[in-house]
């Protein structure tokens, strides 16, 4: 039973979205995680809570806020229009923005934990050897927290693949642009096309299992030290 062309299109789009989101989150999430792990600021609590919000907010709420904020009457929509980018909803980059927010805690929290696990001593030792703060970060902190990054990357990628509510709210279900695999499955189920739904769902299920299997089989070796 081969997958249909639209199914393949949806899968490719899903993988693209997950890849772009994960790469952006490495760049955005790492500084946030670093700051959260090192700061003594009274803002640590509030910022940490904001980062964790997507864990507890229903995706429909997040999606609705995004639709309003990114829309022509919202502040971000006004900004993107002024900059000549146009409106983000119903575009691939709109989905990227939504996914970055939605998967933020999945990137920040494992990386933050890894940074915190290093403790002060290796960094202080490096400092006594006259390593600059940037040097300390790249040659000491980053290598020591590599397992955290791998976990964060895999979780972020997998979580974005499994994303549904936010995409549904701001995507507009455009084939090849915003119709990802989870939306495609939803369409099949709603249209009573259970055969097609099963087929694509099976692909997603096997994929998700393999990703998580990789994660859980990989981790012990490195945490055991």
């Amino acid at each position, binding site marked *: 039973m081969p997958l249909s062309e639209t199914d393949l299109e949806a899968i490719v789009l899903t993988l693209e979205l997950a890849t772009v989101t994960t790469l952006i989150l490495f760049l955005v999430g790492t500084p946030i995680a670093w700051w959260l792990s090192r700061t003594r600021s009274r803002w640590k609590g509030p910022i940490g809570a904001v980062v964790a919000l997507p864990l507890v907010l229903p995706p429909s709420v997040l999606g609705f806020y995004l639709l309003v904020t990114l829309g022509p009457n919202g502040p971000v929509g006004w900004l993107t229009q002024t900059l000549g980018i146009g409106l983000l909803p119903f575009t691939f980059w709109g989905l990227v923005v939504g996914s970055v927010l939605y998967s933020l805690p999945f990137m920040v929290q494992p990386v933050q934990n890894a940074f915190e696990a290093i403790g002060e001593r290796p960094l202080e030792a490096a400092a006594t050897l006259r390593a600059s703060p940037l040097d300390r970060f790249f040659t000491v902190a980053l290598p020591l927290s590599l397992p955290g990054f791998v976990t964060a990357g895999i979780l972020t990628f997998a979580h974005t693949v499994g994303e549904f509510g936010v995409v549904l709210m701001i995507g507009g279900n455009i084939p090849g642009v915003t119709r990802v695999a989870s939306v495609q499955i939803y369409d099949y189920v709603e249209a*009573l096309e259970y055969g097609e739904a099963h087929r694509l769902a099976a692909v997603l299920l096997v994929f998700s299992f393999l990703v998580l299997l990789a994660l859980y089989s990989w981790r012990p070796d490195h945490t055991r030290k």
Partner: protein
Amino acid sequence: MKQFVPVSAVLALALAAGTAAADEAQIAVAANFTAPMKTIIQMFEEDTEHTVKASYGSTGKLYAQIENGAPFEALLAADQKRPELLEKEGVAVPGTRFTYAVGTLVLWSAEPDVVEDGEALLKSGDFNKLAIANPKLAPYGEAAMQTMDALGVKAALEPKLVRGENIAQTYQFVDTGNAEVGFVALSQVMQDGQITKGSGWIVPGDLHEPIRQDAVILDKGKDSAAVTALFAYLKGEKAQAVIHDFGYETE
């Protein structure tokens, strides 16, 4: 044990009394009919002894739940297809199916003065996006496609289409301004016979198949006095007036 006996006795009495007169109907209702149904249920509970427990959702989801043993005693669907299917599969009680409402399609914008001559606007294509309900899933989406087909603008407008999973989401796309115009249900933008916000063009009925919404009693409800009473009530004048107020027609 001593405490338990009186409690169970009271419970048994209550149950016995309950089955004698008042009954509870557990029904599934298409999401687009949520607002009128809430009003109708309130009136029905005041006018009769019965109570109604309603679950609202998309017809496709409700159908799948019914197929898999959901405890619903009746379905008020957004289309005719799903109630017909349930009838064929022997899950619904034959002869109980009827059209409780006919939906009206409207081309709508959240801004005033945008939609005046809807036909001319569709032909000019002078808007950023056109939101429709997914035609595969929602009868309003199917009617929107038929309308564009009848006006000969379907191919030209295809690149501007964004699809909501249901008519509520389609309304959201237009209401937030992300899509300048969209085909929504008149019931979503009308109150007391007036379009309350933005601007709209009521699509003439001859441009698409009528959007008939059928209700059917399910096997689990075939002996329920409350369900039978509710179906009779839906066909009555009071309920019909509510249905009309919300922008639906009846047959």
